[in-house]
């Protein structure tokens, strides 16, 4: 019951289409590769009268997020997108909408961080903002980039949620690649994400003070409420995805699995490399190896329950990180280990770091990781950085 029309769209255009159909009021963004095609397309849509929104061409990413915060506080539906250094420049501001409960929706075209300068994909920028209190969701292809952006508005603006949401798409792999995808009917999308009304907006008819000064007697209560509420968004996220699935025929889960039913070893990926990993799993299955794949879609709030359920029967978990937490290893692997520490002490977790700064990860690469982990179960080192010339 997949509805809509089949089109060929670049990931950036898919995101722009979602934003257009969401009928946003304010867009505020600063150009940075590989996010530029999104803002260019949105500017074009506005110039052609296909989207009625204010586009604030700000002078920095810090101001891009600040303007989104202001617009959202005034009751507008907003959008911004960035990557890499831009996301880092925004970093200070990112904590504001999550703490002030403003449903800003943003897309990040994941990209490496300087130095040396790299415009290509990895997850260093995404991992650097793990603690900002946003809902963070990873897309694997252009269809998902569209679907998850649409869902992000519905989730973020729900009165029981009111948190900002970020959709992560891999820079170039998604942002600049044309794929076939289903573009649903505009009216159905509009119906799925109707206009929303924030309970507290900046309005002289009903004055409120926002962003006040919090002394020690109130700050911990405010932070606990934020954490509890973010945790409590999980059912709403799933509910929204379920409803989306019923209407549009594509279903999403916080933790997606592939050929995991009888798997004794599992790969764990985030983002676009999941599709390459599927090919590796297929080939290894043909070789008679009981390998499966886990793709982490919901990164924050972390889906502990679903993740533990996904790995409950495996003996080996191979985690691919596309970022380094310097002095510590792969951030995803570290978090996965901590999520399983008191539940699955017997599980062998092997961490690899790869695909940094746009270095491709191939099917062979994934097979290497699994085969090596299977061959040397007792590894001396904490993790291995793969595909690097020595």
């Amino acid at each position: 019951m997949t509805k809509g029309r089949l089109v060929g769209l670049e990931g950036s255009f898919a995101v722009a289409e979602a934003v257009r159909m969401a009928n946003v009021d304010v867009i505020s963004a600063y150009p940075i590769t590989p996010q530029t095609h999104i803002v260019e397309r949105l500017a074009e849509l506005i110039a052609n009268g296909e989207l009625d929104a204010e586009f604030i061409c700000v002078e920095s990413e810090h101001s891009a997020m600040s303007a989104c915060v202001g617009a959202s506080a005034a009751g507008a539906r907003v959008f911004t997108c960035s990557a890499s250094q831009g996301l880092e420049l925004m970093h200070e501001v990112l904590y504001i909408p999550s703490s002030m409960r403003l449903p800003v929706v943003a897309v990040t075209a994941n990209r490496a961080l300087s130095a040396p300068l790299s415009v290509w994909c990895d997850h260093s920028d995404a991992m650097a903002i793990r603690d900002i209190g946003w809902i963070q969701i990873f897309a694997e292809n252009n269809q998902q980039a569209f679907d998850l952006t649409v869902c992000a508005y519905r989730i973020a603006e729900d009165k029981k949620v009111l948190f900002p949401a970020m959709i992560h798409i891999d820079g170039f792999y998604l942002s600049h690649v044309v794929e076939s995808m289903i573009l649903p009917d505009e009216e159905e999308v509009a119906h799925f994400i109707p206009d929303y009304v924030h309970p507290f907006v900046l309005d002289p008819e009903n004055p409120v003070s926002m962003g006040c000064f919090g002394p020690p007697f109130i700050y911990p209560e405010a932070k606990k409420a934020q954490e509890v509420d973010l945790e409590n968004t999980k059912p709403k996220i799933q509910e929204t995805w379920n409803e989306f699935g019923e209407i549009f025929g594509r279903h999403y889960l916080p933790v997606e699995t592939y050929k995991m039913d009888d798997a004794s070893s599992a790969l764990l990926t985030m983002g676009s490399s999941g599709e390459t990993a599927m090919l590796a799993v297929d080939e290894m299955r043909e070789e008679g190896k009981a390998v499966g794949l886990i793709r982490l879609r919901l990164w924050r709030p972390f889906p502990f329950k679903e993740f533990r359920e996904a790995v409950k029967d495996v003996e080996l978990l191979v985690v691919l990180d596309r970022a380094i937490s310097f002095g510590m290893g792969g951030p995803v692997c570290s978090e996965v280990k901590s999520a399983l520490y008191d539940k699955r002490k017997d599980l062998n977790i092997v961490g690899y770091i790869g695909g940094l700064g746009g270095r491709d990860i191939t099917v062979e690469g994934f097979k290497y990781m699994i085969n090596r982990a299977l061959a040397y179960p007792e590894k001396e080192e904490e993790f291995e950085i793969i595909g690097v010339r020595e």
Partner: protein
Amino acid sequence: MEKYSLFVPRLITTEENFAPGHRACVGCGEALAVRHVCKALRKNVIIVNATGCIEIFSSLLPLTSWRVPWIHTLFENVGAVVSGIESAYKARIRKGKIQDRGVKFVGFAGDGGTSDIGLQALSGAMERGHNFLYCCFDNEAYMNTGIQRSSSTPYGAWTTTAPFGKESIGQMTWKKNMPEIVVAHRIPYVATACPSYPFDLMDKVKKGIEVEGPAYLHILSPCPTGWQYPPNLTIKMGLLAVETGMFPLYEVIDGEYRLSFDFPKLKPVQEYMKEQRRFRHLTEDIIEKIQEKVDEEYLKLMEKVR
């Protein structure tokens, strides 16, 4: 001024949208200026506040001094936040989601939040032409964090990060001319003001919010704590700053300069500086140097006025 004093106060609203009971220091010139600004703004306004003294002394949870919608987020982004709010209203009015009730948008920041860390966001907002008024409350240093120097601190003044000593006279640089930087953005309205001249200040606020496009008001806000003078002298400090030419009051309307108060003869800067302990270490030759600079700058301004 005298001839107005009988009548003008009756024209000023008794409405206090910046409520009493805030936690500013005794004799705070900034709190007084905020009160005057709010009287002129009235109720149909949204205020965006930078981190700094005002935010700290007016919004300590669970209390607030604001009877109008007010938002604080960060130190350096007032220009950007106000841009977002103005754009949200613009878009939502155009799309028929809300009615146009003529809401005004105003940014508040100190001299650090304006001329240092917030300069970029402010410049961007002015360049893009958003319809808002920006008020810089200039107390000439980072007073909230404990009197550290800013680019708006006057030459020779003592601060905790530009102390005087064997190798230093205190601030070694001349005060950044923020209003001139704003004038260079070719916005329709720029003015300087001081709470010691309350009617002039309120008049400029009204002009600033009525004008279409960005407007900027630079308000000298004497600070007894940072400038180190007795708190009962706040009004006098503001008067002397203007009467000595240290802080002339003027407007720039569509590029045309207009002096708000002209004095046949300026008082010597010494009269302004001698009351403030932040200048007490200065020797006569330094004061002479400051006098020369003030005279020179005043002449430049007079040329623009003509």
